[in-house]
C-alpha cells in the first residue's frame, strides 16, 4: 500500500480551511494546479502565508539571519481607526481600552506555534509611526512555515470579530441594504404581512 506522509492530510486540511475562508475566495483559483503531495506543501504554505494579509513584505537580515515579515491589512487598519475613535469618545487611554487588550490576547493565542525560533510583535498604537502592522520574525532554524497560513488567517478573523464588536459599541453597524429592494419583493413582503 502507498505510504502517504502525514503532510498529505495536513495539506488537505490547510487547503480546506483556506478554501472556506471568504477572504481567500478570489485568490483560491490560483492554487488549482498545486499537486497534493509533500513537496508542494511547503510551496503552498509559503504562497498562502504571503497572500493572506493584503500587504506582506519580507526583509532578511544577513547579519542576524532573521527574516522580518511586515503584515498589514485594511482590517487591522480599521481596528486601529475604531480603537482611536472609541478612545476619543470615551476618553480612554490606549492601555485601558479593553479591545486593545483583547487584540493582544488574540495575537498571543494565534501565534502560539508548535515550532520555535520565531517571535512576533505589532504596531497598532496611534503613537506608532508608519503603517499599522503585525510583525513576525523567523530565525534560520524556523521550520513552522506550514503553521503560518492558519495563524495569519485566524489573526485577521480575530481583528474582524473585534471590529464588529467595536462598531456595535460605537453604534456604527446598522443594517443598510446594499441593493434597493425590487417592487415585486416589496409587494410580496406586504402580502405576507397581511396574511399574518
Amino acid at each position, binding site marked *: 500500500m502507498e505510504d502517504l506522509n502525514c503532510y498529505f*492530510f495536513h495539506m488537505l486540511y490547510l487547503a480546506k480551511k483556506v478554501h472556506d475562508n471568504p477572504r481567500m475566495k478570489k485568490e483560491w483559483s490560483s*492554487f488549482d*494546479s498545486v499537486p497534493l503531495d509533500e513537496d508542494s506543501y511547503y510551496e503552498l504554505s509559503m504562497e498562502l502565508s504571503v497572500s493572506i494579509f493584503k500587504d506582506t513584505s519580507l526583509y532578511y537580515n544577513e547579519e542576524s539571519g532573521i527574516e522580518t515579515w511586515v503584515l498589514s491589512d485594511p482590517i487591522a487598519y480599521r481596528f486601529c481607526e475604531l480603537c482611536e475613535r472609541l478612545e476619543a469618545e470615551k476618553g480612554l487611554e490606549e492601555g485601558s481600552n479593553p479591545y486593545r487588550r483583547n487584540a493582544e490576547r488574540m495575537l498571543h493565542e494565534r501565534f502560539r506555534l508548535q515550532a520555535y525560533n520565531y517571535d512576533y510583535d505589532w504596531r497598532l498604537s496611534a503613537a506608532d509611526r508608519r503603517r499599522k502592522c503585525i510583525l513576525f520574525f523567523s530565525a534560520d532554524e524556523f521550520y513552522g512555515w506550514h503553521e503560518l497560513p492558519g495563524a495569519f488567517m485566524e489573526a485577521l478573523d480575530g481583528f474582524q470579530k473585534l471590529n464588529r464588536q467595536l462598531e456595535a459599541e460605537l453604534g456604527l453597524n446598522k443594517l443598510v441594504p446594499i441593493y434597493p429592494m425590487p417592487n415585486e419583493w416589496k409587494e410580496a413582503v406586504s402580502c405576507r404581512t397581511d396574511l399574518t
Partner: protein
Amino acid sequence: MSMKLNLKLLSTRFFQAKEQPCVPEDSVNRYLLEHVLRPNLEGNLLRLGDIDFSAFDADDVPALEDYYDRLYKASEDLTQFAQTVARVPPAPNTVRSFC
C-alpha cells in the same frame, strides 16, 4: 526452529470470515475516501483544483487520517503474515493422502 502451518484450517478460517472492510469506514467521509484517498493510494496524483471542497468539512480530514493510519497498520500486519507464510518451507506428507 521449524514452524508448521495448517493451510487447510487457514483456508477454512478465511472462507468463514465475514466479507467486510478490514477497517470500518463508517466515520469516514465518502467523498474523501473515494475521490481523494483512493486515487492517491493507487498512485494517481491529485491537484487542488480536482477537489470538491464543498463535499466535506475540515473535521473530516483528521478522521480520514485516522482511518488511513488504521488501514496502513492492517496492511502491514497482512504483509507480515504473508511473509511469514512464504518463509515456511513446504514439507512432504509422510503418508499418501490421495489415491
